[in-house]
């Protein structure tokens, strides 16, 4: 068999070089894989031994003990890790692919991935194992089999791979599907012919419902078919919305893809308004205020309206600027740089500056990008000038780029600080950096005319420094500056000329000589004298200086032949015998030009023109100037050359693509969705995914925004918190139908609500379908009913009951639940002092010291609160007493029953809601006898009324019952018998949500403390927009009246006297679960923010609704 032969030959060739691995390998598990870097020469001596050791490993691999096998595999891995060849062990290793031991299996996989390519025939032996593993019930095994199968790079199994991938795409496990997505790029690399087939698979994975899969699918897309942008359309909005939930590495790819997508689909946000903008941005400052931006936006709208999808992209990517991963931040910055309107780019500055605190390598690359961005858009980095100050500890690249950025950002307003900073750098011990600094000063001087003179003077000052590099660089820079504007600085030229004796650095001397030659007419007396001096030292000069001496001589001769004739001749003669051929050549050339007019008359006629041609001034420019031909942040950009796989960002199209292509059809049967194991189990989830297709254009963004954050939470809720939340969920489902009309407003009003439960409600498809019509109608109804309520309630009071409540609650003051807050609050409860370590003393120290004070303030606040109570008692007695009918006199055969909620605790059972029933005999003269309460079978716990023996005609009797609504708004029903006969219809008492509560008196501190334990998913918020006249009407009384109408809660006295926030507290009657209400007026924006905290979140949701309604009626 050929493969056997091959492995044999491999093994012999191998043993030649691979040797030493085992000397250490044999010594045990802790073998050092790399302590010998001894190379082949030394190993020849132990040739035989070495061969034996390979045998040794083979034996171990062949043994039937897992321990030995594992040990052997570890050694093999050690060899691979060191880069030693272990190919000859292939047959022995591959056998173990069937091992049951996970680690052996894994190590064999590692080995296979390394060597399968080299030993394809043998590798085929292992394929069957993988194929079997692909069917394994364990998803981990399926996935890893697919991973290895796709990684072994054996072309002959391409078809098997393709099959495996196709199968895996439909796998139940998202993890396996993700692996399949990763495998696509590998297969494509192996066989590009399969492209079309793979694209179909990618399309399927892009539409996968699991975000885990999408990230990898986009990566595959980028590798295989980046040009097929049409595949993205349908997934675009979802990808945008779910971007924050993708893993950080895929985020980078997705962001890059979206940047490209935006460049092909949307129009240039800057281009259409160019004309307007120029005026606009001309006088704009560095610090842009938000309001200013808003103003601009409104103006821009006249000419350009951003596509809503374009806006969506920008909005969804912005939070990622806060990623800890620098690559993600950079990708967002890139996206903003290329896709965002100019007025919005500034948001990236902060994030990029933050990256400068990361590792040195990251700094280097980020700085380079900033340098390029600053070149185009000075404004955005202007405020961060100080972030680019150089430290002595920075690496040389970092220093260089920082300097570059400082120079770019320098402008007339900040130049003085920049220059002062640059001056300190000149003194840096890093001479190369000092030289770069001088160059930078030169650049500042050339770009900012105000400081040119000062800079020149400063640079001339540097010429007298002792350090040669500084001197040389200054001279060179000064020379360049003078060249730009020679007329003005004659004095400086003279000054420099005087320095020529002192300066020894050849480059500097050469520069000076060049200057003299160039501007000799300004210093016509000095110039020949300099030449005289130079002629003296000519033999000792460096070549570069000699050349300039020759140039100077030639120029002087042209200008002033009489005086310098002899001197020039002398210099030329010296040059004629110079050892450097360049010098000799140059001398010969110039001599021909100047002195031998007969030999080349054509040229020498123009000698003056040739030598004194006006030279273009050099441009002092940035080191990154030409790098931005490549997309920022790419590898090509960093190294300044095109790298394989690099594609330029396309230019914006002139016409935007039709945004309807990104619309998603209503319900598309999706195989993967049905098969996914998670979907069927979680009904809520399924609803949410389909519901996304319902939205009309307007709302989808808002709604998706919610979805994107809540996505993960929902799932984890369902997965892990199942036990706890099941009750709530059930309740909620029951409630759903009843309260549909109440909840449907949420998606529009409470855009920013972040509570999971609410989102579930909001996304249930029935609701969304109904939305447009039901929305308005409910609002109307509610308002009406509320008006009635107000009128009914105002005049009745129930002093008696109210006093009782107050008493009760003042007693319960000190029993408020203890809660460990970190600092500031309720320190008295911390008793774990001894547990704390020394380190935590900061926190405990405060604890102990503040306890005393805390207690005294508590007392004081109790007193205050009690005082407040009196003043409060008036409004709080405006109890809302409305009577409802629960038994009609027709069905009741003359008996009418009305009920109301007196809002006092039910005496016989504290967990019941107290309901007052009024029995009225509507018949004029018939007595009704023996009215009895019959408990219904519905299971609701009701404390019935005492039997009424006789009810005379026209009379009424008031009696009370207690109902344990169990904190739901389900109606409770019971039956009544009159005179021994049971009434046909049972009496049913629906409970209004507000009546499920009873006041719970808290002071502000307790309130805040309890609030702390009810944050997160126990918090729901709502916003109400009101007009200005309305908001002026809001004060404590109006709000309290309305809130108390809605719900049986008590107000929390405000200790701070803040008149924009009102707090109320209560607890549910049956389970005593706390509900905290905070109403905050935002007068400047004419909005009211409502926050409810309670772990009875459904009740809280409903209550929030009611309060919102009630408050909106204040006028």
């Amino acid at each position, binding site marked *: 068999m050929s493969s056997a032969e091959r492995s044999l030959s491999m093994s012999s060739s191998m043993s030649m070089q691979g040797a030493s691995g085992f000397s250490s390998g044999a010594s045990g598990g*802790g073998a050092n894989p*790399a*302590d010998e870097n001894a190379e082949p020469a030394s190993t020849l001596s132990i040739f035989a031994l070495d061969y034996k050791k390979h045998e040794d490993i083979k034996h171990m691999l062949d043994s039937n003990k897992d321990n030995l096998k594992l040990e052997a595999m*570890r050694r093999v*891995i050690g060899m691979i*890790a*060191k*880069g030693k060849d272990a190919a000859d062990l292939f047959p022995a290793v591959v056998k173990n692919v069937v091992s049951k031991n996970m680690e052996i299996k894994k190590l064999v996989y*590692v080995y296979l991935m390394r060597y399968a390519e080299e030993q394809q025939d043998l590798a085929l032996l292992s394929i069957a194992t993988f194929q079997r593993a692909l069917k394994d019930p*364990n998803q981990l095994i399926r996935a890893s089999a697919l991973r290895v199968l796709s990684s072994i790079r054996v072309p002959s199994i391409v078809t098997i791979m393709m099959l495996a991938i196709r199968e895996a795409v439909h796998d139940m*496990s998202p993890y396996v599907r993700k692996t399949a997505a*990763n495998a696509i*790029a590998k297969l494509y690399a192996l066989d590009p012919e399969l492209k079309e087939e793979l694209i179909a698979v990618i399309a399927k994975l892009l539409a996968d419902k699991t975000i885990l899969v999408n990230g990898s699918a986009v990566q595959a897309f980028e590798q295989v078919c980046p040009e097929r942008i049409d595949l993205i359309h349908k997934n675009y909005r979802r990808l945008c919305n779910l971007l924050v939930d993708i893993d950080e590495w895929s985020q*980078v790819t997705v962001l890059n893809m979206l940047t490209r997508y935006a460049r092909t689909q949307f129009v240039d946000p800057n281009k259409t308004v160019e004309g307007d903008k120029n005026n606009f941005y001309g006088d704009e400052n560095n610090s842009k205020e938000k309001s200013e931006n808003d103003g601009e936006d409104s103006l821009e709208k006249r000419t350009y309206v951003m596509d809503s999808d374009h806006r969506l992209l920008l909005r969804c990517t912005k*939070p*990622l600027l806060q990623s*800890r*991963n*620098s*690559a993600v*931040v950079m*990708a967002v910055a890139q996206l903003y740089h290329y896709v965002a309107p100019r007025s919005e780019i500034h948001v990236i500055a902060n994030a990029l*500056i*933050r990256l400068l*605190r990361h*590792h*040195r*390598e*990251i700094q280097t*690359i980020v700085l380079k990008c900033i340098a390029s961005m600053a070149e185009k858009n000075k404004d955005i980095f202007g*405020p961060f000038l100080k*972030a680019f100050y150089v*430290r*002595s500890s920075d*690496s040389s*690249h970092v220093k260089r780029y920082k300097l570059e950025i400082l120079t770019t950002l320098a402008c007339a307003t900040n130049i003085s600080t920049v220059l002062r900073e640059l*001056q*300190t750098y000149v003194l840096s*011990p890093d001479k190369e950096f000092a030289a770069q600094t001088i160059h930078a000063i030169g650049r500042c001087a050339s770009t900012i005319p105000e400081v040119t003179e000062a*800079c020149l003077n400063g640079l001339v000052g540097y010429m007298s420094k002792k350090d040669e590099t500084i001197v040389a660089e200054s001279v060179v820079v000064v020379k360049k500056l003078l060249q730009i504007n020679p007329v003005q600085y004659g004095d400086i030229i003279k000054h420099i000329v005087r320095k020529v004796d002192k300066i020894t650095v050849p480059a500097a001397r050469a520069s000076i000589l060049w200057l003299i030659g160039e501007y000799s007419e300004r210093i016509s007396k000095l110039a020949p004298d300099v030449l005289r001096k130079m002629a003296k030292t000519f033999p000792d000069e460096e070549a570069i200086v000699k050349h300039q001496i020759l140039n100077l001589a030639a120029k002087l001769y042209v200008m002033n032949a009489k005086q310098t004739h002899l001197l020039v001749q002398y210099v030329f003669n010296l040059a004629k015998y110079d050892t450097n051929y360049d010098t000799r050549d140059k001398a010969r050339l110039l001599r021909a030009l100047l002195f031998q007019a007969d030999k080349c008359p054509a040229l020498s006629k123009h000698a003056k023109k040739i030598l004194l041609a006006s030279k273009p001034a050099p441009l002092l420019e940035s080191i990154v100037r030409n790098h931005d031909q490549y997309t920022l*942040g790419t*590898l090509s950009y*960093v*190294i300044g050359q095109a790298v*394989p796989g690099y594609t330029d960002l396309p230019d914006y199209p002139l016409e935007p693509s039709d945004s309807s292509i990104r619309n998603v059809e209503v319900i598309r049967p999706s195989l993967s969705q049905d098969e996914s194991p998670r979907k069927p189990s979680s009904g809520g989830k399924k609803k949410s995914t389909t519901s996304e297709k319902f939205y009309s254009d307007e709302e989808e963004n808002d709604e998706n925004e919610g979805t994107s*954050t809540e996505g*993960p939470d929902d*799932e*984890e809720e369902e997965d892990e918190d199942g036990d706890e939340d099941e009750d709530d969920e059930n309740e909620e489902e029951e409630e759903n139908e009843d309260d549909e009309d109440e909840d449907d407003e949420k998606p529009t009003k409470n855009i*920013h609500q972040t509570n999971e439960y609410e989102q579930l409600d909001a996304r249930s498809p029935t609701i969304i379908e109904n939305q447009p019509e039901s929305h308005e109608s409910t609002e109307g109804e509610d308002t009406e009913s509320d008006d009635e309520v107000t009128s009914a309630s105002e005049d009745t009071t129930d002093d008696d009951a109210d006093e009782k409540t107050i008493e009760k609650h003042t007693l319960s003051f000190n029993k408020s639940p203890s809660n460990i807050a*970190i600092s*500031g*609050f309720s320190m008295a409860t911390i008793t774990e002092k001894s547990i704390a370590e020394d380190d*935590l*003393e*900061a*926190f405990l*120290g405060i604890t102990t010291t503040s306890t005393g004070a805390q207690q005294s303030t508590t007392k004081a606040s109790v007193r205050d609160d009690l005082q407040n109570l009196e003043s409060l008692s008036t409004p709080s007695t405006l109890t809302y007493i409305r009577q409802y009918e629960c038994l009609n006199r027709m069905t009741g055969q003359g008996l009418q029953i009305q009920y109301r909620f007196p809002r006092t605790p039910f005496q016989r059972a504290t967990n019941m809601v107290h309901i007052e029933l009024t029995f009225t005999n509507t018949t004029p003269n018939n007595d009704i006898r023996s009215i009895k309460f019959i408990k219904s079978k519905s299971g609701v716990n009701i404390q019935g009324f005492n039997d009424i023996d006789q009810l005379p005609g026209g009379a009424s009797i008031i009696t009370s019952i207690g109902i344990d609504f169990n904190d739901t708004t389900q109606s409770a029903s019971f039956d009544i018998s009159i005179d021994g006969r049971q009434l046909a219809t049972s009496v049913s008492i629906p409970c209004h949500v507000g009546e499920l509560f009873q006041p719970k008196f808290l002071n502000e501190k307790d309130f805040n403390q309890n609030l702390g334990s009810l*944050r*997160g998913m126990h918090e729901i918020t709502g916003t109400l927009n009101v007009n200005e006249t309305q908001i002026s009407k809001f004060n404590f009384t109006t709000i309290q009246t309305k809130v108390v109408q809605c719900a049986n809660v008590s107000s929390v006295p405000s200790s701070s006297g803040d008149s924009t926030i009102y707090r109320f507290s209560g607890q549910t009657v049956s389970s005593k679960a706390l509900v905290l209400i905070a109403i905050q007026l935002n007068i400047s924006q004419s909005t009211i923010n409502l926050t409810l905290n309670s772990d009875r979140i459904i009740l809280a949701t409903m209550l929030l609704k009611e309060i919102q309604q009630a408050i909106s009626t204040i006028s």
Partner: protein
Amino acid sequence: MIHSLFIINGAGDVFMEKHWKTVVGKSICDYFFEAQSKCANSEDVPPVIATPHHYLVNIFRNNLYFVAVLTNEVAPLFVIEFLHRIMDVFEYYFGECTETSLKDNYVVVYELLDEMLDSGLPLATETNILEELIKRPNIILKMTKLITGDDTNFGNTLPSSQLSNIPWRRMGIRYTNNEAYFDLIEEIDAIIDRNGVTVMCEIQGYIDCCIKLSGNPDLTLSFVNPRLLDDVSFHPCVRLKKWESERVLSFIPPDGNFRLISYHIGSQKCQSDAISIPIYVKHNIQFREGSSGRFELTVGPKQTMGKTLEAVVIECSMPKSVLNCTLTPTQGKCTFDPVKKILVWDIGKIESKTQAAARLPSLRGNIVLSTGQPLPESNPVLNVRFTLNQIAISGIRVQRVDMHGEKYKPFKGVKYITTVKNGRFQIQTKQNFSIPD
């Protein structure tokens, strides 16, 4: 994407290599060595090096070079960030990432690298997941291996968190003591010029957490003054939207140690909020003709809010012409390395009590300059380090931490530290160069 990885020690030996695609010969590293040899300082090696067919991206950390080989266009930051992440994982697994620790654990290293990258694409990078896949080598594991003979690093099940949307937390965590510790660390980053004027002052803050909570807690952390934080980056577990709308950190934490948030308070904010530097140094350094000089330093606390400055160290790298220093400190220890020309004055604690002001630690003495050499043109820069416990200099305070989703009551603690990263607090003593008029 990432083709191969070579790990190179400080001496320039390639002691480990890993290939995710077709093998690339070790000789590719020669390009790297060539670039390295051109640099005086090991930190100056350009992070990206182009060779004829490959591109090398390298990082230098812990005296090791990680060199990744690329063949195609990949964002360099992506690779750099990933290499650092690998290093982080190694540090987490082995306690330190050095040549010895990597060599000692080469099998684990290889297994990790294999899990972290799938043919060059990052796969699992969260330590929590990796730990479920590959056990962390520690003493307990070694003991159980010895006793049970069960010699494997691998877990047998797929880490459940890999599938969920909270990939950073594994399932079924149980602790008897439920504790959550938050270390709020702030590093001052400042440059003070010779007149004592703060040229630049920035604060870099972190909250490092050590969370040992059972089950699946959902934490909310709120600050007393969140408006200070406008430039932040988060661990992926933090809900970004919640932060944007309410300025609270809401998150399901990873298990164990992690960095929750890092923030940066820029120089504008530092100055407008008048964040005061808690230390001052008076200096008087003179180099005189005739090979001698005076050197005087006095250090004192400034607005430390009653806290003690601890571990105060002043480092000063002297000009080359300084031969030796004869300095006597009133407190602490002072050493001068005549080869590297570095003066280190380890002061220790400085009490903030007012009566101590009379005897502030000071350092005085003479400097010996080598004769014949010109006087140094620039005065040395002082690098100051100190630690201030129990306080965050920016004034950030955690208001409260709440936990939902679990029934038990955890112990929660916050610790504040203000410190200085080496070389980030500089006091210039040099003379400013002035432009002659």
